[in-house]
């Protein structure tokens, strides 16, 4: 049931006078792929940062499998089964690519779920292989191109074997071909299965994205927020036809 998995209730966050997130409530089901869209500055990134505990919410509740996540530390939330990729890829630039992923593999959740794999290198390698940058494993992360950095972010997130994966603009800065590839691999990840020594039960996903045409093809449901407030929730077809959403994105015709 959707109510049991992730439930966000009346979440609020203020930066001084700015209401970055105001009374946002929504829920995500275990096997859903949800798009989170909105114009620039709508509060999408703030919202997911609240979920991961990087920022502290002012009020509201976030229930994940019935447990409140607010007030917990980011690493506790990650061990519950959430994972986040950053919008501006933030690699550990001076470490090799594989070491970037090994850090995730060292987390308590990853080591508990993959006890039978003795070598974390091989698990990290599998995550890289899934993301498609296994050939760069020994290069320092500062060598990677923008597209590969996005892949590294994904590899890092799936190395924790999350149940809910939050992707902050996974297609940002990618060429149309790369975008298509990335969309495909996300879809494949969502279906679940075994990728080498990584086991994926098919994480639910929240995808923040501006490339709507690509996003609409892969998600089941879309949440739109504007000025920190929930604007609309619905299937991609409904959202595309919603006049309020169109107004928020491209404005209103002036008579």
């Amino acid at each position: 049931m959707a109510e049991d998995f992730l439930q966000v209730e009346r979440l609020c966050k203020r930066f001084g006078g700015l209401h970055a997130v105001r009374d946002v409530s929504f829920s995500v089901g275990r096997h859903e792929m949800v798009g989170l869209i909105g114009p620039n500055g709508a509060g999408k990134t703030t919202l997911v940062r609240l979920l991961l505990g990087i920022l502290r919410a002012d009020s509201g509740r976030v229930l994940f499998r019935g447990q409140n996540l607010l007030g917990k530390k980011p690493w506790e939330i990650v061990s519950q089964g959430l994972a986040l990729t950053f919008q501006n890829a933030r690699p550990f630039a001076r470490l090799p690519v594989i070491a970037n992923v090994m850090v995730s593999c060292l987390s308590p959740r990853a080591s508990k779920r993959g006890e039978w794999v003795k070598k974390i290198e091989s698990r990290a390698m599998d995550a890289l292989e899934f993301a498609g940058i296994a050939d760069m494993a020994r290069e320092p992360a500062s060598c990677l191109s923008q597209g590969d950095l996005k892949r590294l972010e994904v590899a890092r997130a799936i190395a924790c074997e999350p149940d809910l994966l939050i992707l902050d603009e996974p297609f940002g800065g990618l060429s149309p071909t790369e975008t298509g590839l990335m969309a495909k691999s996300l879809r494949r990840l969502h279906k679940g299965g075994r990728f080498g020594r990584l086991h994926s039960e098919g994480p639910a996903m929240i995808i923040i994205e501006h490339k709507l045409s690509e996003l609409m093809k892969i998600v089941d449901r879309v949440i739109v927020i504007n000025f920190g407030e929930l604007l609309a929730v619905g299937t991609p077809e409904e959202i595309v036809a919603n006049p309020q959403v169109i107004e928020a994105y491209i404005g209103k015709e002036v008579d």
Partner: protein
Amino acid sequence: MFAYLARKIWRDFQGEILALPTRTILFAAAVALLLLPLVTDDAYLLRIVATASIFAVYAASWDLLVGFSGQTTLGHSLFFGIAAYTAALLNLRFGLPAFLTIPAGALAAVLAGLLLSLPALRVRGPYFSLASLAMPIILMGLIFSFPGLTGGEMGLSGISRLAGTRTGEYYFLLISMFVLTLLMWKIATSRTALIFHAIREDEIVVRVSGINTTYYKILVFCCSGFFAGMAGSLYAHFLRVVGPSTLDIMMSLQVIIWGIFGGVVTIYGPVVGVFILYPLLEYLRIIPDWRMLIFAGIVVVTLRFMPEGISNKFQDLLERQCPRCKERNIFMRKECRICCTDIGTCSRVG
């Protein structure tokens, strides 16, 4: 059986040490230091080497904290001083022998590490540096305010010796230096050190990767404190005098000079730095008026031409990284000793 073991050790020795020129040089230097008392019994020279080996442990522990996990502390002498004073007080007031006071001093430094990790969990960057700078000064103030117990400005003297003879002391210090730095090097190449590296690069991302950064930051402070504390209590027993100079700001700044001169994030870099700079500073006593100026000049000029530190510079000169498997090879080799890739044509990795 013994023949087999001997062959295995010889093979490992060939593969791990003789294959790389920098390791060969370090090994040769270590052997030379071990053989030094057989060649000369110049007490002054032996004393300099022994003191340098204490400071080598101290500098390497600084590297573990600042180089690896990026917690730029300016008050590293806190660990050194607190351990020296603990060892001295336990030895003088309770009459404990050196083999008990040295671990006790290190333990005190671990507690100091816990104390110092409190501000480190809350403030970052330059603010933490300033907070850490204050710690040894506070401790020094405490020492001055209880002169009855701590000896005040005069310090404590009459601490028992490490070993009966001068050569015994020399070997004790040298071998503890080898053991402690090897231990630190082991820590620095372990999985845990990977997290220390990652914390230096980007702490938020480490948190979101599901790592409890609080735990690892406290851990690195305790580790570094332990090794600096070992150095401090060895120092107390070697000099047999402990004064407020062990907590001095000079003590904290010197270790930075040694570390950066030798090359950070290597563990052996600061050790090399100490073994070059400390004897150099002593040697310059032949011209006392110009001593500090010449010393500073040498350091500045060296860092102008080798900003990455002397050990890293020599490693880059003598060895070349294989572009494929990232293993290091001696610069003459045309192909990688591990994966046989042709490396003769590619340029040096800087």
